[in-house]
């Protein structure tokens, strides 16, 4: 648990912001798909989980939208304001297996783990195709990093008209993050894809069992410990709430 200052804030899409903080141990240890659980004094009771968006030197960044009072308070923070940062938490994406190409599919705030995923995929020797979708051009994240970048918008205002899943090519390694509805569509198309799911989260450390993810084989496990990255075919998508006001990535 780290008490850390906010070191920067910038806008990357309409309503979407990146907040940076000083967190050397997390920056050096974090893997793509892992998250931090952030709290602050006078904030809401529970911490808020965020995928680590970028990790460079002694700093990490998270990306967020004001979806509730908690994220609203975070966006009102100034450089120097303090955050309590717990992490890195959870199990991230796997890059073993010697595949030559990775396709990253992100919808909206689903960009959150993908900058690190692009980094780690390249380190593993893969070429990166990143497909990013949003409702409109203004809501597309302006910071992308892929050997090939494909855009998709619901209204056709930039790139292909339609969803990021529909716009993506096939590949041996597919990583996806976005609203659970989008991930369910990704699971239909690529059962072996690795998906980072969104859930409500209580503790982030495995004790509260609040972040239950329904599994195809029956029962639940914890997004904060066994997840938030899953093999798409392992999740019982019909039983996973499709939209949440706040979550790991949204």
């Amino acid at each position, binding site marked *: 648990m780290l008490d850390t200052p906010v070191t920067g804030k910038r806008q990357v899409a309409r309503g979407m912001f990146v907040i940076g903080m000083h967190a050397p141990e997390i920056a050096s240890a974090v893997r793509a798909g892992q998250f931090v659980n952030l709290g602050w004094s006078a904030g809401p009771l*529970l*911490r808020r989980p965020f995928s680590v968006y970028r990790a460079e030197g002694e700093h990490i960044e998270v990306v967020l939208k004001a979806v509730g009072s908690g994220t609203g308070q975070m966006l009102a923070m100034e450089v120097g304001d303090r955050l309590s940062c717990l992490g890195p938490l959870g199990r991230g994406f796997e890059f073993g297996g010697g595949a030559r190409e990775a396709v990253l599919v992100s919808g909206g705030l689903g960009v959150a783990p993908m900058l690190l995923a692009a980094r780690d995929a390249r380190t593993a020797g893969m070429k990166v195709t990143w497909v990013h979708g949003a409702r409109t051009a203004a809501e597309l994240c302006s910071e992308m990093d892929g050997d090939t970048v494909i855009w998709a918008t619901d209204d056709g205002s930039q790139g292909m008209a339609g969803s990021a899943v529909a716009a993506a090519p096939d590949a041996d390694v597919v990583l996806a993050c976005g609203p659970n509805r989008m991930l369910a569509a990704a699971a239909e198309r690529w059962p072996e894809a690795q998906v980072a799911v969104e859930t409500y989260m*209580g503790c982030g*450390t*495995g004790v509260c069992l*609040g972040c*239950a993810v329904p599994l195809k084989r029956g029962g639940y496990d914890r997004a904060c410990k066994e997840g938030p990255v899953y093999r798409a075919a392992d999740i019982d998508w019909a039983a996973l709430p499709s939209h949440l*006001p706040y979550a790991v990535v949204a």
Partner: protein
Amino acid sequence: MTTDMSVAVGGMKLRGPVLAASGTFGYGTEVPLVERRALGAMVSKGIFLRPREGTAPPRIAETPSGMLNAIGLQGPGADALVRDYAPQWAEWDFPVLVNINGESASEYAELTSRLDGVPGVAGFEINISCPNVEQGGMFFGNDPRAAATVTEAVRKRTKLPVWVKLTPMVSDIGVIARAVESAGADALCAINTFVGMSIDLNAYRPRLSFRTGGLSGPAIRPLAVHLAHQAARAVRIPVIGIGGIARAEDALEFLVAGCTAVQVGTATFVNPKAIAEVHDGIASFLEARAFRSLADLPRYLPRD
């Protein structure tokens, strides 16, 4: 000079008055060792005889200064607990009590027999107050005869300490407290969560899939202090205070109000060091006021 923080609670001598509440510390295996140094005792996540899946998500919802949960006592069952966790508990330097659950008095009794004598199991906390199960749970806790029946059934199967965790959802907690005291409980834990509901205005339905959930966190603290105090006034056995404790001052309120020890729950979700901080804060409070031991803390406990 170190302040003596030890307490005697319901058949146990504990090194400190701050305990981990059931359902907020898992089976103790997720929490780094450094966070356990101040732990007086740990109460395990609630367990049934057989494995349980728990409720469908969403299971939690944040509310003002609190949270609702409906986990539904997800757990691996007694056999897995004995195999996977108890051997670890046997090595630890603080006692672990198992929070036990059943759908009938005989199921509580059977579970007790299964766990009694297992190395690592130091005692039992009978859960007759879980609001998130369809059968059993809170329904035993709001009827004095049912509460006594379950307590007796467990009492007959073990010589280990038996604590009973009470529900706040009763008209007079003193009646239930006296009933379980007479049935052989060694201590009372007051209180479990309040039943609450929160509505998702986008979906026009409850935010939790279980419809209702148990409210915990600072929001319930004054209610909990009052109920723990009422329970303590009603019985001679020790009362362990629970409800929204996040800081030493919160714990001290329960202790002054007549509790012998406290459990910290939801605060651990937010701050994994909460128990250690509460423990250290109590010690500092006592030291600053020149009390040599926790036993010297003045209590406000007029008897009924």
